[in-house]
């Protein structure tokens, strides 16, 4: 898959840094709109509610956007995202297993802070195992790995379905509430933990930007340039697993958001330098969520459709990318 699938005349007119600043400005405007449109009644109370939601949108969008760029560089492919390789199904599977083993009541009464940390931790370990497994078989051919990832997703989903059939209805209700991404009612403790984690991980990723640029040249070139490629891959995958696990544990699965953000970031900045790409993609991920939520909640007055629309649009983009890649 070549980098220039989405080549366009637009980016010729803008330097990468300027494009990033433009995205940041759009995001700032979107945040202002989100906070201020349709304010009435007890303004202080509403602003506080909105601020928490906005923080969740920013953290999740930024985390997933950055993670996807890292993941795509390691995978040497612009179509792959953690979500497409079965991460969402893994999340569902782990949620179901936790409810199953702890019982619905035990699961619901766990302290939110520790529960969040446990979920994130379990998912990080499982995701590293899954990605590691997939990447070991990758050398041979990419499409087989993709299909394997998708089918592992189907398998995990079916297993989760099987366990859900064995549960009490009350336990099932607990699982069901975790199945769809929702930004309403995000726990503030969890949000704080996630924000701190992101504040640690994003600079780490940014610090690796130079190494990532070398990795993007391919394994052989990277080795030739003196980079311990396999070890670097493991390090990046750990960061990806942490970011994605954290975001998913916070609000639930949004599989195609990362694909949208990363594709747009490559398209708008037109650079291969990760020092620009990582922040651009993080900003874009956050901007997509904030704009989408503003439009749906304030303008259209709908609560639940954002996740569905992102899935739908992202799915179409995925198909387009696959087909364009095939035509090359």
């Amino acid at each position: 898959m070549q980098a220039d699938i989405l080549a366009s005349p637009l980016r010729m007119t803008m330097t990468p840094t300027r494009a990033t600043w433009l995205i940041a400005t759009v995001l700032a405007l979107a945040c202002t709109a989100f906070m201020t449109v349709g304010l009435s009644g007890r303004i202080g109370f509403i602003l506080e509610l909105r601020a928490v939601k906005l923080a969740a949108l920013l953290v999740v969008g930024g985390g997933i956007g950055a993670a996807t760029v890292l993941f795509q560089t390691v995978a040497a492919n612009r179509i792959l995202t953690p979500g497409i390789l079965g991460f969402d199904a893994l999340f569902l599977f782990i949620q179901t297993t936790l409810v199953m083993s702890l019982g619905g009541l035990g699961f619901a009464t766990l302290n939110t802070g520790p529960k969040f940390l446990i979920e994130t931790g379990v998912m990080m370990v499982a995701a590293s195992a899954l990605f590691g497994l997939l990447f070991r078989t990758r050398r041979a051919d990419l499409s087989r790995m993709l299909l394997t990832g998708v089918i592992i997703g189907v398998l995990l989903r079916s297993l989760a379905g099987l366990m859900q059939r064995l549960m009490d209805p009350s336990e099932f209700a607990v699982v069901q509430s975790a199945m769809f991404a929702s930004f309403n009612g995000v726990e503030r403790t969890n949000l704080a933990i996630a924000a701190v984690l992101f504040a640690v991980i994003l600079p780490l990723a940014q610090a690796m930007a130079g190494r990532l640029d070398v990795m993007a040249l391919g394994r052989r070139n990277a080795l030739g340039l003196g980079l311990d490629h396999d070890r670097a891959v493991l390090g990046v995958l750990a960061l990806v697993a942490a970011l994605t696990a954290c975001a998913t544990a916070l609000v639930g699965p949004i599989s195609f958001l990362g694909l949208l953000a990363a594709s747009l970031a490559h398209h708008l900045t037109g650079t291969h330098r990760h020092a620009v790409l990582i922040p651009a993609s993080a900003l874009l991920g956050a901007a997509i969520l904030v704009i989408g939520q503003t439009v749906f909640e304030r303008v259209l007055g709908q609560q639940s459709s954002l996740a569905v629309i992102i899935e739908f649009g992202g799915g179409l983009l995925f198909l387009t990318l696959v087909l364009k890649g095939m035509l090359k």
Partner: protein
Amino acid sequence: MTRPFIIAVIVLTCLSVLSLLIGASRLDGNALHLLTISRAPRTLAALLCGAAMAVAGVIMQQLVRNRFVEPSTTGTTEGAMLGLLIITLIAPGAPVIVKMSAAALAALGGVAGFLALIHRLSPRDPFMVPLIGLIWSGILGAGATWFAWHADLVQYLGNWMTGDFSGVLAGRYELLWLAGGIAALAYISADALTVTGLGAARARALGLDHRRAMQLGLGAVALVTALVVVTVGAVPFVGLVVPNLVSRLMGDNLRRTLPVVALGGAALVLGADIVGRLIRWPYEIPVGTVVGVAGAAIFLWILNTRGGHSHAG
């Protein structure tokens, strides 16, 4: 009579007897009544459904010339569900035959969309075909879910999405005989199917009307899928794993392998139904869920062993 055929017959007989003996209530005074009203129809439904879906998978694989396609990875099943949703909305009281026809038409639409998508695809990469099919199915499925959500029909959709034999009674499954009949017709035209699998140019050179064969074959697949979805709900992966396993054992001469494929599909579905009935007796796990787990696991194995490599495409 090949050896795999004889083994399949023996396995199937044992499973059928087991299926007749297992259930929530005991076989006592009313045994005959229970058997004729519930157990026998249920066993027959599982056999017919498994055989028909496995054969539909083979037909699909020959027409598309790819080993990894079947109705649930090409948008056919999701198309049938969409059709059912729409007809349920327009005419809730329509007779089942009308609903079935609507589902079959929509299933045909689903598979036509899939074919249009892969038409632009280079056939060099056999794994991309099912991948695109899965995404296409996902988009259709998301559309169906969204639609059902707005029309308050999510529960109906759930029934069609997961195949389940627990509602099968005498008088409620007979449409499946039609699916079985279509599978039998496929055996009569096995040679034509084999030739179709060689590709359009070679098929024409051998004197086959390739276009017509495609139309008939796709029509048969859509009809079988619609029949199964209407009567018991979707049963995924049967059409994919059974033909692949059989072809590893016996090669690709459909005249020889089709009967084994049909028996194997029947055995897989009936076996899954029995497991679903036993796993949490006296409650039941739907067959669609059990087949989903088993089928995905077998598919992964097929995909990542050496055989999948050399046979792909």
